[in-house]
Structures are given as structure tokens and as C-alpha cells.
């Protein structure tokens, strides 16, 4: 049953991916000005511009370029950068671990912060601690991450003369320094997600704690811990997992600014530079990767949903 459901979801994901790929292909081409104009000086002749455009394959009809690109992308070839002439895929492979690590640490820290706080806030609804924790969560959602990052660079520098390492340290060079370098940006990225997850955990747990079976659990004389964690949290955690799936694009989106501020050579910084240089194959490649990852993660989340809640039948 689950297999059939997943197969159906996969089938539905295909048109979504196709439309998304068309958008991904179209978007960068709509940016005013193209790579050729940037590559050649303003004084260059129209003939040179046309020649270079033909050489890069940018003179052919739009749909021809799209179909050709899609065909090659399906075979794992994302083309090569217009500027560096290096394959987009290998450039991506080089930067993906940094962004992946950042996103992973951010997600884990978000969960570690959100779950305990959400449980406490729900178990002590409308108490002082609930108010304080909820206000903190909303504050976490309200503070722009680029400002938080700036503060965490400025204040320690002023107070203690401490500054985060600016050059990127590879894991192979110094594992401890590497993790320490990524931990702070990851924590900043995770804060907004933690706040959203905490709020949902609290809300869902409150709803579950009003159910009849929870009243029965109380009546049986179970401890608060058993009632809240075993009967409550287990049933409240499912939407939280769905939300975790939808947090991924958020976290990936946040990396655009965070990688920029902390000088991390990740995928988002690659995208930022590529957009500035109108490097179409790179923009398309990165966006396609992000879109496919998000679709895949949502598929996994839906499957997890069914495993966690045996009541869900497809």
C-alpha cells in the first residue's frame, strides 16, 4: 500500500519537477543584460558579441536550448560555467558538502532547541515560563539572521577582541577548527527554524493533551512525564516532522546571506556570484539541485509520516 502511494507521489512529482525546471531555465534568461555583454567590454563590436553568443550557444531559439539542456541534465550533465569553462557538476560537488553540512547542523540544532522547549511550554500552558518561552520563540522568528550574524561578529570583537576565522578551513586540514567554524553560522540559521518548530510542537501537544485518552492516562495515575512524553509527544510529533521537511528550503534560502557573511565557499555563494555574472548554466544547475532536493525530502517526509502514524492508510 505504502509502495503504491509512494509510486503515485513520485509520478506526481515528475510534472512538478518539469514545470520547475522550465521556470529554473527561464528565470536567469529574463535578467536584463546577458553574460556576453558582461564578458566583452562596452567598446566591442556587435559582430564580436554575435560571434561569442553563437559560440556559447545562446543564439539558438529558447525552446531548443531548454530541451537540449533538459536532456543533458537528465543524464547528469549540467553543462559548463560560461566563465570558468569548468563542468557545473564538479563545481557543485566541491561546494555541496559545505552547504550540506551547514544545513545538517542547522536542522539538528533546531530540533535540539525546539522539542524540549515546546514540551515545557505546552505542559505549563499559560504559566510564566510558557509566556517567556513563547515570547523568545517569536523573537527568534523576528530577528533577521543577517543582523544576528553581524552582531555575533561585532560584539565579541569589541568586548573581547575575538573574531571568527574568515578563511575557510577544510575538514582534512583541521577537523576541530572546521566544525567550530561551521557551528556558529549553523546555529544562527537554525534559530528561526527552531522557533517555528517549537511553536508547532507546543500547539500540537496542547491539542493532543486535550484528548480523552490523555485524561484516561491522568486518571490511571501515570506520572506527568509518562503522560506528556509517552502519550502526548508521540502523537504530537508527526506534523512537526512535516514542518521539518518544509523547513529545508528555508534553511537553504538562509544560506545565501549566511555564507556571504561568514565567507563559506558553499553552493549559495556560488549562486550569488553566478547571478552577478549571468552565468546561466550555474544558476540553472544550482536551482535545479535545490528544487530536486526539496521535492525528494518532501517525498521522504510523506513516507515517514505513514511509518510514524499507523492510522494513516493510503
Amino acid at each position: 500500500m505504502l509502495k503504491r502511494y509512494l509510486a503515485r507521489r513520485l509520478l506526481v512529482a515528475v510534472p512538478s519537477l518539469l514545470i520547475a525546471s522550465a521556470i529554473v531555465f527561464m528565470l536567469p534568461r529574463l535578467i536584463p543584460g546577458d553574460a556576453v555583454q558582461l564578458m566583452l567590454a562596452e567598446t566591442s563590436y556587435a559582430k564580436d558579441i554575435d560571434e561569442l553568443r553563437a559560440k556559447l550557444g545562446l543564439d539558438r531559439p529558447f525552446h531548443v536550448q531548454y530541451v537540449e539542456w533538459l536532456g543533458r541534465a537528465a543524464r547528469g550533465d549540467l553543462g559548463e560555467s560560461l566563465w570558468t569553462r569548468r563542468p557545473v557538476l564538479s563545481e557543485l560537488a566541491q561546494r555541496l558538502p559545505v552547504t550540506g553540512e551547514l544545513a545538517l547542523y542547522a536542522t539538528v540544532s533546531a530540533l535540539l532547541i525546539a522539542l524540549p522547549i515546546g514540551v515545557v511550554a505546552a505542559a505549563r500552558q499559560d504559566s510564566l515560563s510558557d509566556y517567556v518561552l513563547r515570547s523568545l520563540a517569536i523573537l527568534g522568528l523576528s530577528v533577521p539572521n543577517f543582523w544576528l550574524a553581524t552582531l555575533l561578529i561585532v560584539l565579541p570583537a569589541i568586548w573581547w577582541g575575538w573574531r571568527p576565522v574568515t578563511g575557510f578551513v577544510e575538514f582534512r586540514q583541521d577537523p576541530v577548527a572546521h566544525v567550530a567554524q561551521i557551528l556558529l553560522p549553523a546555529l544562527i540559521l537554525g534559530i528561526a527554524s527552531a522557533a517555528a518548530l517549537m511553536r508547532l510542537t507546543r500547539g500540537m501537544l496542547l491539542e493532543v493533551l486535550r484528548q480523552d485518552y490523555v485524561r484516561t492516562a491522568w486518571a490511571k495515575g501515570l506520572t506527568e512525564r509518562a503522560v506528556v512524553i509517552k502519550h502526548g509527544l508521540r502523537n504530537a510529533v508527526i506534523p512537526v516532522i512535516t514542518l521539518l521537511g518544509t523547513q529545508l528550503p528555508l534553511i537553504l534560502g538562509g544560506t545565501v546571506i549566511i555564507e556571504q557573511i561568514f565567507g563559506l565557499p558553499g553552493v549559495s555563494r556560488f549562486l550569488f556570484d553566478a547571478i552577478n555574472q549571468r552565468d546561466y548554466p550555474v544558476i540553472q544547475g544550482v536551482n535545479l539541485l535545490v528544487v530536486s532536493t526539496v521535492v525528494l525530502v518532501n517525498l521522504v517526509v510523506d513516507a515517514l509520516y505513514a511509518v510514524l502514524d499507523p492510522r494513516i492508510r493510503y
Partner: protein
Amino acid sequence: MSATTSATLELNGAAPAPAGARPRTVAVRWALAVAHFARRKPLGAIGGMIVLAMLVMAVFAEQIAPYRYDETVRGARMTPPSAAHWLGTDNLSRDMWSRIVYGARVSVTVGFATIALAIVVATAIGVSSAYFGGPWDLVVQRVVLSLLAIGPGGLSDYRAILAHESEMPNNRYFTLAYLLGPGPLNLIVSIAIIATATNSRVIRGATLTVMQSQFVEAARAMGCGHMRIIVRHLLPNVVATIIILATIGLGAVILAESALSFLGFGVPPPYPSWGAMLSGSGRTYMLRAPWMAIWPGVAISLAVFGFNMLGDALRDVLDPRLRGGR
């Protein structure tokens, strides 16, 4: 019975004023409702006050700010906060407090314009998509989902989306904003496109729930037309969801606007916008004049905090499933 006593009684849950008493004016009823809301939701009331302060700042910027936003004060380059310049001055000797006050205007204008645009279009898409269903729903939802590049699918609860409505990924705005180029109008359009997509999903979900109700079935059986069912029966029942979306969405839009301004897609200088004040000179001089990087961030955080608090409290009050009980 004096008006005050009757108001106190009403707040304490006592019976309404006896027959024969003068009917309350609209203003008094509103004041009572606000007082009741503030008593039940103190955090929401704080949020409401922050929002109100921001609106006043935006509307009366000329009267509140001691200087114009582009006025340079002779001999006051990067002076720290003092009695003369509450929040200090920047690298071009401009008063930071005045710039923050004028900056509220950008946030409020972009915020309200974006949300108005997004909510109207999202309601049209969401309600029609849920009501007519079939191929229309399928096509519209494919486009919406592709735009969002998220497919939580049929399983996801619309309330789960409501809960995390306050944040939307920056990178989508970012690509769109780049596409449209800098400037306030383009900023509004690029944020509104994404906000429309997200909100239309939520409104569609809420409408689908209302469609299950018997009164919709009854209206249909009585021979009501599509327009009548949508306007008289569906819309009034999703209006609470729309109000919550708009309030919390405003916080998200202000955050998005500041992120885009930070990246250079916002209002062109010298007009101040909080996000832009944080980038550029704010970051260049952050070690010598940290107040240049601190206050705009405080302003953004407070504004978003206010809208989120207010939206949260409104959700508690307007969404019966989250109301009362332990």
C-alpha cells in the same frame, strides 16, 4: 449606570446593560473589544502597541524625526548615542533616529502593499481552486507548487503551514527580485508573488474544510449560484484565516524586505530602509560605530516581533480549535 461600570461588568463576564440603557456606540463597542482582547492576550496587546507605534512613526515621520533623513549635521560624524542624537549619527553625519523613523515608512508601505496584493490574489486563487476543483485546481496547484518548489502534498495539514507562515525562504524572493531589478515596486511584486503562492495554499486548505459543512450542501440544494455560495457562505468562514495570514504575513514581508534591501534590491539611497542601513556603511563601520549596525536591526526585529505577537494572539482568538481549555 455609568459607562465605566457597565464596561467593567462586561469585562468581568456579567450580564449586559439592562434594557432601557442607551445602546453603545460603535466606538465604545470597539474599545470594549480591544480591552477584552488586551486582558485575554497581553502578549498580543504588546504586539499591537508595537505595530501602532510603527504606523504612527511611518505616517508622522516629518513631525517625529528631529532631522530630515538626508540632512547632515555638521561636526557630528559617527558620534555615539547622546542626548542630542539619541541613536548616534552615521558615517555621513546623519541622525540615526531620524533615519530609523523615516525607514518605518518603507517597511510599512512595502509591507501593506505586498500583503494587500498577495492576499487578494491568493484568496481568488485559493477559494476558486478549492470550490471548482477538477482540472482548474490541478493546473493551478501544479503552478503554485512549482513556484514554491515545495510539495508537502495532500497530507500536510494547512494548520501546520499556518504555524510556520511567519518565515518564507529568502532565496525565492532573491531570484525573483534579481529578475525584476531593484526598486520598491519590483520589491513589492517579487515578494507578493511568493506570498501569494504560500497563502493560496493555506486559503485553499481552509476553504476545503468549510466545503465539507452541511450549510454549503444546503445552499447548493436550495439552488444557490456559485457566486452566492462563494461570497455568502465560503468567504465569511475563511475570513479569520485570511486575517491571521495577513497579520503574520506582514512580519514575514518586513523581514523579507529587509533581507532584500540588505542585498541591495530595495529602495535606492539616500532614502533609508532598515535592511539597507544594515548593509553597506553599516557593516563597513560596524567595529568603529557599532550603533550603525545595531539600531536598524533592533527596529526590524521589533516590527516583526510586533506583527508576529499580534498575529499569534489573533489566531488564538479567531481559531476555535486552539481556544480555551487546558
